[in-house]
């Protein structure tokens, strides 16, 4: 039962429209930095574009997708109309306003600070206020998800919360808490300086606050993808979820350990003690656990589908899978990219190995492979799966959809593998220009050119994606029926209270935040004389 189709479609369209713009900027950046482009002489333009690309891809696009998908899940999994539709629209318009407010200073070159802010660089205050509005808009969604679940629980006392909604609300709580780090950084540190009330800033403390957000935000981006793995894919390929309990435990583990691990982003920072770096490193290793659980459960679920279709043998069942089904294809691509990206992530989280790839193109390759690859390809899949239910029209051209997914997959591999490689060779990231005529880096020219070609494959795929969705709005009408999620092999009749509620896990998440972040933040905040003069972007 999808009652508020317009609301969900508005979120999706805004998400994909800004995605298209940011994708174009990304491809341009790769071109201009590669040996095939001519250097544009002004690095500022590059950083302007990079800031816009990061801000849209990091804050606006995934947040809108999570919100759209969240509303859809709330209505269809709980089978109740969304409570607080007006608030939902308010959240949407806040994000629109925030995005516009943030993009104008970026376009004017007044906020080329990159989406990670990098104090003591300080941009125009409206850029930060815009980002704050986007986050506030998304917090409305968090509240609505919680309220809708509460309403449902009242009507269904003691009943197991449907898996999709359980995971969705876990994701929203994770986001609510993880956004607090960047919010503190913005409200207490950056915005007062950007508004001219202060002229100095504690950059070290700001980096610690941002690391609070920076890692778990990736898991917030990941949530829709994992929800799709568990609750869409098995249904779409005619299988069942292997274990509902395993799924719940995975999401719970994400909730508890995705956040208090962010300091592995500050391994090279002198202001953080080595002991805390070690704790965060160890907890980062733990976060691989829910992913491994998920890979196992989903492979088992897919095997169920294959055997139901007559697949036989130890591995022979793989051939029996519906490979022409876009959902199957997307899942396989996503897993391959998750595998490579995850392996790279294990290198990033280990203190010693990180030293050799820290701040190199390896990192850029890593997060594009995980986010742009494994996660975003499932965003496409979610949109394809939901579209007929939202528009009441059929997506007819499966061939085009498969082409789009293939292009995205190959494009992402071609983009990110050379990035990893040149990163190992030592190429720094966040650079506007490389002089490939220099013999020291001339051998890297081929790899960088290749990755730029990959960038254009991604752009083509992105355009195709938008074309498919736009054509889907005009296709002949067809009733897609009610939107359903995958059933488990053993559909739960009752669920232990701990696996049906969040209090315990949110409590553990907050407790771990206190133990893992409390002391470093307190000492940095109380230390006198750690602030440095702000460097205002665009100031003469």
């Amino acid at each position, binding site marked *: 039962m999808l009652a508020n189709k317009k609301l969900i479609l508005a979120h999706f369209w805004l998400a994909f429209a800004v995605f298209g713009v940011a994708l174009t900027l990304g491809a341009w950046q790769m071109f201009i930095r590669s040996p095939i482009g001519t250097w544009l002489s002004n690095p500022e333009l590059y950083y302007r574009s990079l800031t816009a690309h990061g801000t849209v891809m990091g804050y606006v696009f995934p947040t809108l997708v999570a919100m759209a998908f969240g509303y859809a899940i709330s209505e269809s999994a709980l089978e109740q109309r969304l409570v607080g539709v007006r608030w939902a629209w308010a959240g949407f318009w806040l994000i629109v306003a925030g995005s516009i407010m943030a993009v104008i200073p970026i376009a004017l070159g007044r906020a080329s600070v990159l989406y990670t802010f990098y104090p003591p660089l300080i941009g125009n205050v409206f850029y930060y206020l815009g980002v704050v509005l986007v986050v506030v808009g998304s917090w409305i969604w968090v509240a609505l998800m919680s309220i809708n679940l509460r309403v449902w629980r009242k009507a269904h006392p003691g009943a197991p919360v449907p898996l999709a909604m359980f995971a969705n609300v876990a994701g929203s709580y994770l986001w609510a808490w993880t956004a607090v780090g960047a919010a503190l950084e913005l409200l207490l540190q950056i915005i007062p300086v950007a508004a001219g009330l202060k002229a100095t800033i504690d950059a070290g403390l700001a980096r610690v606050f941002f690391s609070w957000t920076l890692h778990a935000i990736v898991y917030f981006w990941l949530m829709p993808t994992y929800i799709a793995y568990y609750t869409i894919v098995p249904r779409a390929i005619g299988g069942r979820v292997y274990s509902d309990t395993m799924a719940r435990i995975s999401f719970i583990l994400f909730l508890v350990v995705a956040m208090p691990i962010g300091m592995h982003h500050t391994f090279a920072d002198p202001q953080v*003690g080595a*002991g805390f770096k070690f*704790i965060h490193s160890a*907890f980062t290793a733990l976060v691989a656990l829910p992913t491994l659980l998920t890979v196992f459960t989903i492979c088992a679920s897919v095997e169920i589908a294959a055997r139901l279709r007559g697949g036989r043998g130890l591995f022979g069942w793989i051939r029996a899978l519906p490979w022409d089904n876009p959902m199957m294809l997307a899942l396989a691509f996503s897993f391959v990219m998750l595998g490579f990206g995850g392996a790279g992530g294990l290198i990033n989280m280990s203190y010693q190995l990180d030293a050799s790839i820290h701040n190199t193109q390896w990192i850029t390759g890593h997060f594009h492979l995980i986010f742009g690859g494994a996660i975003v390809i499932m965003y496409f899949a979610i949109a394809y799966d939901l579209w007929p239910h939202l528009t009441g029209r059929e997506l007819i051209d499966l061939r085009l959809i498969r082409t789009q997914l293939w292009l995205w997959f190959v494009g992402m591999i071609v983009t990110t593998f050379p990035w990893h490689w040149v990163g190992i060779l030592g190429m720094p990231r966040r650079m506007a220009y490389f002089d490939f005529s220099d013999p020291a880096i001339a051998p890297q020219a081929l790899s960088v050119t290749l990755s730029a070609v990959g960038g254009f494959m991604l752009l083509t795929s992105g355009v195709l994606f938008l074309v498919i969705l736009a054509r889907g709005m005009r296709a002949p009408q067809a009733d897609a029926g009610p939107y359903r999620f995958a059933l488990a092999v053993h559909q739960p009749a009752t669920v232990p209270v*701990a696996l049906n*509620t969040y209090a315990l896990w949110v409590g553990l998440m907050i407790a*771990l935040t206190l133990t893992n972040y409390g002391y470093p933040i307190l000492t940095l905040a109380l230390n006198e004389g750690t602030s440095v003069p702000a460097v205002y972007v665009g100031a*003469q």
Partner: protein
Amino acid sequence: MSARDLFTFRNRHFTTGVGVTAAILIVTAIGGFIVLPFAQPWVQFANVWDAICSAAGLPQRTATVAAPEQTRRLSGVVLTSSTLSRSSQEAIGRGATLAQRCAICHGPTGISRADSPNLAGQYAAVIYKELHDFRSGARTNAVMSPFAVGLTDQEIADLSNYYAYLPRLPAYHPTPQLPKPNIVIYGAPMRGIAPCGSCHGSLDNKTGSPWLEGQSDAYMKAQLEAFATGERRNDISQQMRNIARAMTPQEIEQAAAYYASQPPDVVKAVD
């Protein structure tokens, strides 16, 4: 079931969840704060508490050796993007009177015929900094130092405001405009040289960096060479010395010749 049933040791989810989390935390804390610090043979700790404090990142005053004495004077000028950004007519008037004594080298209109810098329309912050540095001895010059030594803070500010107020006139050594050399627009990234234009105009301007268009070729070359040899050292954090040291003699010539050939009205376009 209610929250009361959840938060009780009878609930095995509660005991396992909290227990495992606490156990991992304790084990990693012991590893990070006690085992690993002592695993570093090159660091000596007095006791366990010392190791824990070190691993927690507690700021410690370990420097028992005094910092080496600074023999040469460093620039003590602090500039912000708003330094002298608001000038008054009175200040400009006072500056004009004071500037009479500068005219012999820097020209009555602020345009030099003696290979001294042209000051007409130069950024106030730039003149302010250089005069302060000449006065303090952070920068020395046989001609300039005696002039600067007697100036008061007020006089320095007035002079800066006056010269910044003067219109930018064409220089006396017109040459055909040269194309931008690589060092000006690209720098030399592999040698850590940012493009000249990223601070001195053409691409961007940074506080405290003078615009260079139409300045004397010989003067700019001499300054770059003085930075390279360390003879001139009033640049903050050695920014110009690091750059000049890494530049080739040919690049120094190219940069100086390029900026000398540019008319100062180009500066207006990027201001």
